């Protein structure tokens, strides 16, 4: 297997950023994320449905979704709301889980909603170590450590 030599590449791979402009007012786009009656209409890839969608939409509240694939396969997704700033920012943890609710690898998702010429610019950021990055914002020691880890991963 080819080793990834660039530190930047490895670091970038640890987080995902997707931006999209929606032709709808910001309050509506925000609502689409925070109310089950909206969410069930769009959550998940094409062909998926959301037979279970429980949301305790408040700070520290949990959500749990059961997504059903086109083949009838069920996938559980769950997390906790960490930050709610209506209508501009939403932060929640995100983990696939088994039917018993045992979560797998957890990531942190940050969604920001910005006014954009009458439309809404949505930016989704999903990261593995987001909470650490926040605690150690721009701390050089942390950056150096990540660089070293990245270099190590490139060699491994």
């Amino acid at each position, binding site marked *: 297997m080819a080793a990834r030599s660039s530190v930047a590449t490895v670091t970038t791979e640890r987080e995902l950023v997707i931006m999209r402009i929606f032709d709808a007012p910001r309050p509506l786009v925000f609502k689409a994320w925070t109310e089950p009656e909206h969410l069930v209409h769009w959550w998940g890839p094409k062909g998926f449905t959301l037979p279970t969608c429980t949301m305790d939409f408040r700070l520290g509240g949990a959500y749990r979704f059961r997504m059903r694939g086109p083949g009838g396969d069920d996938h559980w997704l769950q997390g906790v709301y960490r930050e709610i700033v209506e209508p501009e920012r939403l932060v929640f943890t995100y983990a696939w889980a088994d039917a018993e609710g045992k979560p797998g690898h957890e990531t942190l998702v940050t969604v920001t909603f910005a006014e954009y010429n009458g439309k809404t610019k949505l930016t989704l950021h999903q990261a*593995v170590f987001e909470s650490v990055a926040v605690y150690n914002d721009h701390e050089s020691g942390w950056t150096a450590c990540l660089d070293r880890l990245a270099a190590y991963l490139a060699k491994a």
Partner: protein
Amino acid sequence: MAPDSLSITSAALADPTRRALLERLAQGEASVGELAGPFDMSLPAISQHLKVPETAGLMVRGCDAQWRPCQLTVGPRKDATDWLEHCRPFWEQSFDRLAEYLHRVQRKEKKHGRKK
């Protein structure tokens, strides 16, 4: 409830001493004694620190009773990276649906007057 894996990993990395220890391990395996070298700390204190990344699965220790070198693991971080790769299509396709849905909702709202 058991603490989630993100919290465990975060806790393991959210301390300057532990980050320095992991940084040293990124250069190759080392014994606790070797790791303790640059620190003004007792061996038990260093051992205590090492337990955190070990529990988080970021590091393993050898089985030899005398020589138990500490070594970084690749697993958890590699898994995380693979996992994120799978997320992009999930969101992209969801957003396609969200765009269509928002379009439908607004059309319906228009039809039913300027109802808020």
